Structure formats: C-alpha cells, structure tokens
C-alpha cells in the first residue's frame, strides 16, 4: 500500500514516515500543501494523511482541489479539536480525521480501515479459499497455521487480495508497493511472486502474460 503524508513539521513527518514504513507501507512525503496536492494528483495513493495547517495551501484547500479530480481516501490530522475544524474537514471530503496528539496505533488502524473500505471490503478478514488474510494482524493463514511471509510478500498478497478477481498490472503493483525512495529492480516482483507461490501453493497467484497478476 502506498501512502502520501503531508505534514509541515519535519520531526513529525520523519516520525510518521518511518513508523509507516516499518508497517510496510510505501510512504511518500510532502511538507507543504501545494507539493502535496501535486503529488496526490499525479500518483494513485491508497490513502493520504493530510495535516490541516500547512503552508502555501492549507489542508482543507488541498482536499477541496483534490476532490475535484480524485476520490483517494484522506485522513485529516487536525491540531484543534474544535468541532468546526472537524466539520470543515469532513465537509471538504475527508474520509476520517484524527486530532493531535494521537496514538500511532490508532492512526494505523484508521488507515487500514480507510483502505479496506475504499476497496469495498467490510471486514478485516478476507477469505481466499481455504486461506484467511487478516488485515489487522497482517498475517496469512491456513486454518490455524500461519504461513510465514516477508513484509513485502505480505504487502503484495494484501494488495492483490483487496483487488481480488481483477488483474493488477506490474506497473500498478510497483506504484503501490514501492515509494519514490525505493530503487527496486524490475524483476524483484517476479521473485516475490514465485516465493509466495512456493510458500502457499503454485496456483495462489495467477499470471496473465502481458497483463499482470491476479488472485482469483
């Protein structure tokens, strides 16, 4: 999953970026509203974490302009817990909001829920045949036996599972699993897919030549 974090405080931005990366999100960052908006329009992020008070263009303006073009899920961070700020954010098209200071785990849970709901997935547990993918614990299991996956492998399975039944192109996968700081080799995706197939079963992920990958 690829996220955009727009926050003007360098320390907080750093903390959020590192924290989210450790949770296997691909994270891009922007320190002002204008840059954030530009990036959000250019790249299809799975979710955006947007601070309200930003230089250049404040969070609400960014949201207003983004919503004119895209429906990317947005979680607003507000420093004032005044009701008007929240109403303003939600009215401008925010999907959720968090008031600073917040718990990092709550941010994670809300992001998971945002992404899941955006894919029309009501529950954190996705059944894939005899397999269960648990979004909250970030595990794949058969019955009670967990299948050990590396974070990247899990992220790939999660993305395909959330787009279950549709073919996801390699480019889209790259876009959503790696952020701008990743220098990934183009065949790395194939390595991950083949490793997952070995660990789960050979036909878990099907390959459509020239199109991409798919979980049926």
């Amino acid at each position, binding site marked *: 999953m690829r996220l955009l974090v727009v926050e*003007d*405080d360098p*320390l*907080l931005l750093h*903390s959020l970026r590192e924290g989210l990366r*450790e949770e296997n999100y691909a994270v891009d960052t922007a*320190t002002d509203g204008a840059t954030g908006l530009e990036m959000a329009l250019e790249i299809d992020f799975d979710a955006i974490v947007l601070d309200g008070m930003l230089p250049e263009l404040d969070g609400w303006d960014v949201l207003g302009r983004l919503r004119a073009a895209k429906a990317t899920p947005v979680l607003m961070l507000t420093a*004032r817990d005044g009701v008007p700020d929240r109403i303003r954010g939600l009215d401008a098209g925010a999907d959720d909001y968090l008031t600073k*200071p917040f718990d990092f785990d709550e941010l994670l849970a809300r992001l998971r829920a945002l992404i899941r709901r955006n894919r029309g997935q009501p529950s954190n547990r996705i059944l894939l045949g005899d397999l269960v993918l648990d979004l909250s614990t970030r595990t794949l299991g058969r019955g009670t036996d967990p299948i050990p996956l590396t974070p990247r492998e899990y992220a790939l399975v999660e993305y395909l599972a959330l787009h279950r039944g549709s073919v996801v192109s390699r480019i889209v996968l790259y876009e959503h699993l790696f952020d701008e700081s990743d220098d990934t080799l183009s065949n790395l995706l194939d390595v991950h897919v083949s490793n997952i197939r070995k660990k789960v079963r050979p036909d878990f992920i099907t390959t459509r030549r020239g199109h991409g990958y798919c979980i049926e």
Partner: protein
Amino acid sequence: MKLPFHSIRWRLQLWHALISLSLIVAVCLLAYRMAAEERQRQIDRSLFGFERFFFRQLFLEAAERKDDSPPKSAELRSALLALRDADPLPARFRGVFDAGEPYLGFWDSDGTLLFLSPNAPPGLRKPTFAPDDDLELVTSGHLRELHHRHGPGIALAVGRDMGDELAALGRFRLFLALGGGGLLLAALAGGWWLAGRALKPIDAISHTANRIAAGNLDERIAIAESDSELDQLARILNDTFGRLADAVERQKRFTADASHELRTPLTIILSETQRGLKREREPADYQQLLSHCQTAAQRMRGLVDSLLILAREDQPDDRCTRVPCDLAEIANRLADRMEPLAAGHGTLIHRKLQPAPIDGDPELLDTLVQNLLSNALSHPPPGTAVTIRTGVRDDRVELEVHDAGPGIPPEHLPKIFDRFYRIDRARTQGSGHSGLGLAIVRSIADSSGGTIEVESSPGQGTRFRVRFPRSRNGERGQNRTL
C-alpha cells in the same frame, strides 16, 4: 425575586408618596386654618357690630338729643333698666333678639343683672375680667362671646351660636380630606407610571446584560438616538461589553493557539516512543528516537516558558521590580551570549552602544533583547549583518536591532507582534520558534512603559526600535551596573 421595597421603582414610589402626602397635608391644613380663622373673624366682627348696633338703638333718642359723646355709666344703667322693664320691647328692638341672632347681657359692678336678651342661653353669667383688660373674646363650646367692660361698673357679654359655621367648617374639612386623598392617589398613580417609564430602559439594559452574562457575548444594548443619561450609560456599557468580548475572544484564540502549538511536539513524542517500542532496534536507532523526543520536549519547554512570561506580563501588578539599569550593558551582555548563534549563522553582531539608563526589570529586559537578537539572527538568510544600538534621543532611551536582510513583506508588518503569528510557518516550524518571541518583546516593552515600532523595506532591511522613558535616577544606574 428581589424584595419589592428594594427595587428603585418602589423606593421612588415611597419617597414620592411621602413628599406628596406631606405637601397635600400641609396645603389642606393651611387652607382649613385660613378658612377657620376667616370665619372666626367674621363672627367677631359681627359681635362688635351687634354691640355697636345695640348701643345705637339703645341711645337712639339720646343721640338725637345730644352729640356723639359716649354715654355715661349712669345713663347706660338707666337705659338698660328701662329696656329690661319695657314690655313689650320698643319697636326698634323687635326682632333683634330672635332665636339664632346674637344675644347679650349686662351686669352691674355688684353682679346684678341689668339686662338680659330673651334669646340668651340659660346659665349666662357675668363675665370676669383680668384687672387691666376691658375687652375679651371667648369661645365656650359652640358659643362665641365678646366680653366688654364699660367704664368702672357695667360689664356686658355679646355672644352668638357658631353651630352653623362649625358645621360648614366640618363640611369643608371633609371636602379637604376627600380632595387631598384623591389628589394623593392621583399623584401616586402618576408617580408609579412615571417611575416605570423612566426605569424601562434600565430593565432593557439589565435584560441585555443578563443575556451577555449568560454567554451571549455578541449581544448589545439597543441605543436610542437621543442622548439621555441612560443612553450614555448604555453606550458606556456597550463599549465595556465590546472590550470584554474582545478580551474573551483573544483569550480563547490564545488558548487554542497555545494548545495547538503544544499538540505537535506532543504528537512527535507519542509517535516516536510508540514507534520505538514496537520492536527491538539498534542502539543508533534508539539514540535517534530519543533525540527526536528531546527536540520535541525542548520545543515544549520553550513554548511553556514563553507562555509563562506572557501570562505574567498579562497580569497587571506592581510586583515587577524596577531598578535603575543600563540598557547598553544588557545589550552588550546579550550580544556576547548570542555570539555563538551569530557565528553559526555566519555573521557578527555589530554593537553601537551608548549609555542608556532606564528603570526596568533586568531579567525582562534580558528576554526582550535576547528575543530581538534571536529574531534578527534566525529569520534573514545566513550572513546577514545584524546591528544592535542603544542610546538616548529626545530624552527617551532607545534600543535598536537592525538586520540588513530582505525585509518583512508589508502585509505582515501589522501582525508580527501578534501571538503565534508567523510569517513563514514552514521555514520556522521545526526551528523551535513558537511565534511568541515578538509578542513577548511587545508585552515587556508595554509593561516597562516603553513603545516598540518596526520599519522594514526591501533595500533597508528590518529595524526594531524600542523606546523607554529615561531613568529618573539619572546616570546613577549606569555607574551601578558597569
């Protein structure tokens, strides 16, 4: 509900009633007294007249015969005795002593009755006189009598019944009482109405004030076009409410801003610690996490310090210790202290320090100078020359901090002393500047009796100038601190 007699309307009414009552009673009493006295005088005149009339009748023949000399006692005695014995009375006395007309009696000096009119009340006695008094008017019951002594011997009493007059006076009294009572009621009703009318605007004012007190700070008292005392009061109250609302609004904004400023470093600390505790890490990672937390905590400390200074400055008290000190000396010390920061910024602090004796709190003045210097050293690009100047001009002590930077855009100038106002939020956010530095400078300048102004233009850089009243202790402060 208040006790009714504590309300202004009731008290006005009470006073009004008292004054009206005493006025009406006084007027009625006066009228009655005058009427009563006038009646009395009429009666008395009629008694004198009757006496004269009787004598004229008695001596009718004698008068024709003689001159106007008063009759002798002997003549009088004989005339009276003749009249007493005449039966019937001579024609000229016929009808004179009918019932209801004045009566009269004459007595000799030895007490013998000389003449008594037929209509005299029973028990009429010879009047007694004080030794040197020959004439006396006496009221007994409803009878009014004139007692008169003629010459050495003969005493007479003329009297009449005052019953009719007393009854008339009684009626007059009743009329006065009823009329006065009516008048009082009318005055009270009028007063009540008038007081209510006069107090109506006060009611409106108190209702509005109540609504404002209940939290509706935008409410104002409606003011009529006129300029009555109450309108003036309403205007003053409206001004006060306006200032109160402003103060509350400022306080609210300040609190919101302060909490907003504290939230970000708190978020950093929470986020970093939670991230750090999620898994085992390398020592270098932990060090980085801790240093981030430290930075955030230091930011909070700086903010809390600033807030405390502002809160203290907001309290108008006289605990502030003002001692004579020299601003030049303070500026010199602070410039020394800020030298490392200036070096880090690739510049020097130029000093043009002339003695500047003022009365102030040295600690606060330290903060003021430090904030101005730190402002000049952190906002313009590195390498920008910074000058600090002190001196006396026009009997005012001046402190100037100038930087030759690009200047402050004019649209920001009016707001730079506002709390939490930042020209470029992005650039200053992480650097520990809370947006309170200049607000603190202004607050300290205000509390020290000084003024602050800023000049900024693209070519000239930015100049902050603080002016203070000169120390009353002359140059002594300079000697003391140096």
